C-alpha cells in the first residue's frame, strides 16, 4: 500500500470543501547573503580562487578549500520567455550603484550596480555581491570555471604576439607586460526550434541550339528557365551565445567564445572570490533580438540550400519560433593589456580553451620592405627590357615578363596592405 501522503509532499489550501490537496515540498530557495566574504578559517586572512588548483586558497597560510562543484553541463536549467520575465527584464537594476558595508572592517563602499565582485579598498578583503537582480532567475545561475591558469595564459599570449610576420619582432619580449586580469563576463544562452516554409523561383540553365538567319549558321545559347519551388525545414538551435556586456569589443569576444558548455557548473560564489565579475548590461530583450536575427538567418540559408540550384529570386519564407529558452551564465576570460611605443593594446583569452584574439601593432617598416621586395623583380626586368629593346627585340619578352611580375606584385601588395590595415584597426 503506498503511503499517504506521499513522502516530501506538503498540504496546501484546497479550492473545494471535502478535498485535501498535497503538493511536493518546494525546493528551499537558498537564502542568499547580500555579500559573501571569504575569510580564511585558519588565519582570518582573505582567500581567493586559485585558477591553477581550482580551489579557494589563502595566500597567507596556504590553506585550501574546494568549492562546491555541481556539474550541470548543457542540461543546465533554462527559462522560458514568460510575459512576467520579459516585463521585469526590461526594468534593469533600478539603481546605478550599490552602497555596501564591508563586514570585515566596517568601511562603507559604493560600487557600480552591475559589478558582482569587489575588493575592499581599506582591508583588501574579497567580496561577492549577490541578490542585486530584481528577479531570481535574472542573476547568473551557472558558470564555467577557469581551466587555463596565469602561466599558461602568458605563454599563449607571448606565442600569439610573435606569430604574425607583420608584427614587430620585439613584441614577444616586451619589457612592460601588465598583469592579466581574470574576469567573468555575462553571457545569455538561447535555445529555440525554428520551423520555416519557403517558396521561391529557382532558375535552371538550358543550353540550346538555334539558327541565326542573318549569317545562316547554327549557334548555341544559354537560357534560364524559372520554376517555382517550395519546401520546409525545421532547425533545432541549441545554446546560441550572446554577449551580455557591451563594454568589451564584440569582435574579439566573438573570436574567442568557443566555449564547451558541457563544462558548466552551478553558480557558487567561491568561484568568483578575488576575481572580477560583471553581470549583464545588455538586457535579455536586446540579446534575444540579436539571437533571433542569427537564428532566422541560419534558417533562411538552410531553406535556400534546399532549392535545386543557387539561382533564386522572389524568395519568401514564413518562420515560426517555438520552445524558446534562455539562461544567464558567466564565462571566464583573461583580459591582458600591454604597451608598445606608448600605445595600449588589449588581448582577450578564453579562460577555458585558451583561444586568443586582440590587438597587435603593425611594423610598417617591415611591411613596406616586403612590398618593395615584391615589386623589385618586376621593376628590374622592366628596366632591363627597356634597355635591351634596341638589341634585336630581346627587350620585348624581357619587358613583358617584367610587366607580368609587376602586375602580380601589385595584386600581392594590395592584399598585404589590406591585411596590415585590418591588423592595425583590430
Amino acid at each position, binding site marked *: 500500500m503506498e503511503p*499517504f*501522503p*506521499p513522502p516530501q*509532499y506538503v498540504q496546501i489550501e*484546497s*479550492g*473545494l470543501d*471535502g*478535498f*485535501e*490537496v*498535497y*503538493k*511536493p515540498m518546494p525546493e528551499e530557495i537558498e537564502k542568499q547573503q547580500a555579500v559573501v566574504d571569504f575569510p580564511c578559517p585558519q588565519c582570518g586572512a582573505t582567500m581567493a580562487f586559485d585558477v591553477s588548483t581550482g580551489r579557494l586558497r589563502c595566500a597567507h597560510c596556504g590553506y585550501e578549500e574546494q568549492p562546491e562543484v555541481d556539474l550541470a553541463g548543457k542540461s543546465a536549467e533554462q527559462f*522560458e*520567455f*514568460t*510575459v512576467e520575465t*520579459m516585463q521585469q527584464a526590461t526594468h534593469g537594476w533600478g539603481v546605478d550603484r550599490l552602497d555596501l558595508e564591508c563586514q570585515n572592517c566596517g568601511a562603507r563602499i559604493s560600487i557600480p550596480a552591475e559589478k558582482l565582485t569587489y575588493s575592499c579598498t581599506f582591508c583588501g578583503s574579497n567580496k561577492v555581491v549577490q541578490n542585486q537582480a530584481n528577479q531570481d532567475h535574472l542573476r547568473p545561475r551557472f558558470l564555467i570555471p577557469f581551466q587555463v591558469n596565469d602561466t599558461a595564459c602568458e605563454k599563449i599570449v607571448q606565442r600569439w604576439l610573435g606569430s604574425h610576420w607583420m608584427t614587430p619582432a620585439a613584441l614577444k619580449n616586451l619589457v612592460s607586460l601588465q598583469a592579466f586580469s581574470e574576469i567573468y563576463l555575462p553571457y545569455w544562452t538561447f535555445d529555440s526550434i525554428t520551423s520555416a516554409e519557403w517558396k*521561391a523561383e529557382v532558375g535552371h540553365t538550358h543550353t540550346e541550339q538555334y539558327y541565326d538567319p542573318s549569317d545562316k549558321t547554327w549557334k548555341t545559347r544559354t537560357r534560364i528557365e524559372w520554376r517555382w519551388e517550395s519546401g520546409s525545414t525545421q532547425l533545432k538551435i541549441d545554446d546560441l551565445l550572446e554577449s551580455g556586456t557591451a563594454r568589451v569589443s564584440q569582435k574579439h569576444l566573438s573570436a574567442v567564445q568557443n566555449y564547451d558548455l558541457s563544462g558548466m557548473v552551478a553558480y557558487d560564489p567561491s568561484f568568483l572570490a578575488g576575481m572580477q565579475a560583471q553581470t549583464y548590461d545588455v538586457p535579455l530583450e536586446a540579446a534575444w533580438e540579436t539571437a*533571433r*536575427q542569427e537564428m*532566422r538567418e541560419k534558417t*533562411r540559408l538552410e531553406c535556400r540550400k534546399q532549392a535545386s540550384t543557387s539561382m533564386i*529570386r*522572389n*524568395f*519568401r*519564407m*514564413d*518562420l*515560426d*519560433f*517555438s520552445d*524558446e529558452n534562455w539562461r544567464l551564465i558567466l564565462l571566464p576570460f583573461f583580459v591582458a593589456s600591454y604597451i608598445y611605443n606608448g600605445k595600449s593594446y588589449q588581448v582577450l583569452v578564453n579562460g577555458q580553451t585558451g583561444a586568443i584574439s586582440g590587438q597587435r601593432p603593425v611594423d610598417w617598416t617591415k611591411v613596406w620592405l616586403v612590398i618593395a621586395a615584391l615589386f623589385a623583380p618586376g621593376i628590374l626586368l622592366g628596366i632591363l627590357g627597356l634597355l635591351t629593346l634596341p638589341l634585336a627585340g630581346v627587350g620585348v619578352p624581357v619587358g613583358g615578363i617584367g610587366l607580368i611580375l609587376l602586375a602580380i606584385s601589385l595584386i600581392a601588395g594590395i592584399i598585404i596592405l589590406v591585411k596590415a590595415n585590418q591588423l592595425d584597426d583590430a
Partner: protein
Amino acid sequence: MEFNKNLKESGGKRISLLDWGKPLKVVVCENCDWQFILQETQAFPHCPHCFKPALVDLSQETRDQLAIYLPELILTSTLSPGQITQIFQSFSSGLWFSPPDLKVANMLNRLALIYLPIWLVDSSVQATWKAEAGFNYQVLSHQDRFDDHRGGWSSQEVQETRIRWEPRAGKLQRVYQNITAPAMNEHPLFIRQLGQFDLTLAKPYESKVLAETDWMACLPNRGTTDAWSDAVMGFQSSAVKECQQACRADHLRDFTWVPEFSGQNWTLLLMPIYSTFYTDDEGKPQPVLVNGQSGKFYGTRRASLRRAQKTSLILAGVAVLVFLLSLITAFAAAVFPLLLTLGGIGIVLALLIGLVALVPLFIVWRTNQHSQVMI
C-alpha cells in the same frame, strides 16, 4: 421469462407500483421479454419494442417479486402532435415504390410513447487520489516573414499559452448524486440511433408529469450489479472535475484514485421516445423511433418490390405490344414502303420501353441497399 427479483439491489426497500403515484400494471412481452409499466386502464395491442402482439399482464404474485425502482427524474416530451406528424411525413415522403402500409396515418395510429429508464445512483465516496495539475501561463514568441520584394524581414510578436504540469495528491470525502448508468442493454444502440438526451433538462418525477395520453415505461433489463461499473466511471468523472477545482488548476491529467463507496441509492430517470412501425412486403414490422426531446428520428425505409414488379410488368407489357405493332407495321412495308420507317421507330421505342421497365426493380434494389435513415 426472467424477472429481476433482487430486492437487495433496491437498497432493501420494497417499492410498490403505488409509489409511482398512479394505478399501474406490469406487462411483459412473451416474444422479446421486455417488461413495461403502464396505466392499469391501458391496453396496447403490440409490444413497442418488437411490435408483436405478445404483451401479457403479470399476475399480482409475480409483480410482488419484482424489484421496482422509483423514478427520481423525468424528461418530458417536447414534441407536439403536429411536429410528430411532420416527422412521419418527412420519413415517408420521397420514397419511390413505398410499401402500401407506409402511411402517416398508419404510423400515427400505432404510435406509442415509451419512457426508457437510466439508472441514477447516489453514493458517498472516500478516496485517495493522485493526478497532475496543469496551470496555464503565457509566453512571448515570434512569427517572422521574409520577402525579397518587401525589403527582407518583418516580425510579429505573439503570445502563446503553455501549460505547466505539477504533481498533486489528496483525499476526498464527498457525496455524489444522480450519477447515470445505462439501465437497458440496448441503451448504446438507442443513443446511436436517436442521439443524446439533454439530461440537464430533467425535472423531479411527479406522477402528474407523466403524459395523460397512453404511455409505457420500460423496466430495466440491466441490473444494478452490471450497471455499477458504468456508475463508477461516472463517479470518477465527477471526482476529476472537482479535483481540478480543488487544485485551482486549469487542467488535470493522469488521475488515479482508490475509492470506497458506501450508502448507494438507486433510482431511475425516464427518457421519452416515440415508437411506431409499418409493415413491409413480407409483413415484417419496420420500426420508426423518434427522440421525444430532440425530434431526431431513426427508421428503415424499405421500398416495395411487389409494387415495382407490378410497374415493371405493365411497362414490359406495353413494350411487347409496341414491339408487335411495330413488327406488323414493318411487314406492311412490303405494300407501303413508307411504313418501314415507322416500324423501325416502333421497334426502337419498344426496346427503350423494355429497358425502362427494369428501372423500378433497380430503384427498389438500390433503396433497400441503403435503407437506414437517421435524421
